[in-house]
């Protein structure tokens, strides 16, 4: 009756969220006095998971690329084999895709966007974000089996000096009518979901032609680029960069908002970020009330300086 965790990988390498959910699973298993079993797909060396508290790995080899229906069913079979009462997934696009299917398969209650280890594992209660980060919500899961989706960059990575045994697991794979035709993914850019740092621009930048400095700042910091809703509505930047209540949520370590006034919907979407910096000409911009550090100044003067200073900093600390 171990805790089961779905540890996602890409081209055989674990995603950062995989190590975070493994750390989370270990915390749950410790509370419940049991062990952690991870499920991986197409990973040749899963020993790294031992460093994050995983005791046993079930690797499913030779499966197709991600398919929510097929993967959810394979995870269900793994959960049944291990008699798992708690199944942990991440908040990646793929995990959020398959978690509801898995929950129905296991007849399990599912709580998403969970940010802390369970408050209690007897009456199983977790703290999650709700109202797009404007509030928290304690949810009790009443079913025998529980599915928990952990918010990215909330629990963090917790190293553990253990080792994981790895075995092959061969579920009976179901078929799906849904087939991938094409994938369009910028491999050289950091995605907003994975980024430790996000640099975001708003209407204060005056036009798409001025995004060069945003991209340069992001490059210096190894950051992802994002934008406010008006910017994506105006077509200055793609929708995939829109962060906020109706766009993507951001939970980075550092969020830098440039020329963004901070409408309530925008703040809700980025509030989970740990440190927020705002650069804006208007000292009355609502973002200053939500930020940790602020510069009242013209982005066109401040940002190039910031890029220079960061380059100097990087050179000194390289």
């Amino acid at each position, binding site marked *: 009756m171990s805790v089961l965790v779905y540890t996602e990988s890409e081209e055989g390498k674990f995603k950062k969220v995989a190590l975070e959910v493994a750390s989370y699973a270990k915390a749950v298993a410790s509370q419940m006095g049991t062990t952690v079993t991870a499920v991986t797909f197409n990973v040749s060396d899963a020993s790294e998971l031992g460093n994050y508290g995983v005791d046993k790995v079930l690797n499913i080899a030779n499966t197709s690329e991600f398919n929510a229906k097929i993967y959810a069913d394979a995870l269900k079979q793994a959960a049944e084999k291990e008699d798992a009462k708690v199944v942990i997934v991440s908040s990646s696009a793929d995990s959020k895709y398959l978690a509801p299917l898995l929950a129905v398969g296991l007849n399990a209650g599912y709580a998403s966007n969970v940010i802390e280890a369970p408050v209690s594992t007897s009456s199983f209660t977790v703290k999650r974000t709700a109202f797009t980060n404007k509030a928290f919500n*304690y949810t009790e899961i009443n079913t025998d089996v529980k599915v928990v989706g952990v918010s990215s960059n909330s629990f963090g990575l917790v190293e553990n000096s253990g080792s994981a045994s790895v075995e092959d697991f061969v579920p009976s794979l179901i078929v799906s009518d849904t087939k991938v*035709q094409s994938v369009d993914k910028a491999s050289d850019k950091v*995605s907003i979901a994975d980024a430790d740092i996000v640099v975001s621009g708003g209407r204060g930048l005056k036009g798409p032609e001025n995004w060069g400095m945003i991209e340069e700042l992001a490059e210096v910091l190894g950051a992802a680029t994002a934008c406010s809703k008006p910017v994506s509505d105006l077509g200055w930047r793609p929708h995939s960069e829109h962060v906020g209540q109706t766009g993507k949520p951001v939970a980075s370590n550092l969020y830098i908002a440039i020329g963004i006034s901070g409408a309530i919907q925008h703040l809700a979407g980025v509030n989970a970020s740990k440190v927020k910096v705002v650069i804006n000409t208007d000292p009355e911009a609502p973002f*200053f009330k939500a930020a940790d550090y602020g510069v009242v100044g013209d982005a066109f003067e401040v940002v190039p300086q910031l890029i220079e200073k960061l380059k100097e900093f990087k050179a000194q600390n390289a």
Partner: protein
Amino acid sequence: MKILVCISHVPDTTSKINFTEGDTKFDTNGVQFVINPNDEFGLTRAMWFKEKQGASIDVVNVGGPETEPTLRKALAIGADSAIRVNTAATDGFAVAKQLAKVVQDGGYDLVIAGRESIDYNGGMVPGMLAALTDANFVNNCIGLEVDGSNATATREIDGGKETVSTSLPLIIGGQKGLVEESDLRIPNMRGIMMARKKPLNVLDPVDTSTETSAVKFEKPAPKGAVKLVSPDNIDELVSLLHNEAKVI
């Protein structure tokens, strides 16, 4: 093609969020309710299928009588008829079970729901509905075309997008991108008048258990004051981010 659009009745995005009854209930006092934005993108895409491919559109909400103005708005935008399953929407799994009954009885080819509601952000109803009705499912959907019984859908993935081929019956977890923000429709007077005459059927709920329950709410702790750095002293900002915030 018979389309069902699931409509969640949520507080307007500008709402201040407060709780009552010892932080166990959302305080609806002074709050304006709207169609969940993710659902509105789906409804607008459904209107495209209605106008270009002759589809019919039903809208459905699981909730009490207070949600009817939101359903009437969906009718004013252009849906043909509305269904309200008369029970409080407390748990995503229970909502999905109510909707599954509506989908099975109605024989819908395409069901469009928002990828999540902006209040509870559960993000589970469309996927659970697909599993319960054994339909195909595409989440985070930002593009959808239907040709006969085949569909092509684009979904957002972390750092990009993916296009899939699939078939009806199909359930969509939709979001912005299904249509553009500028394509959203504000109901006109004629639409509002017509919506009054369109059918709004109230159904009794099926029995469900409560898989999850929201036991308590909490608001984030108030934030400390912002630390201002002079635009002439950006060195200080870099130093604060490194030494104090420890994020670079």
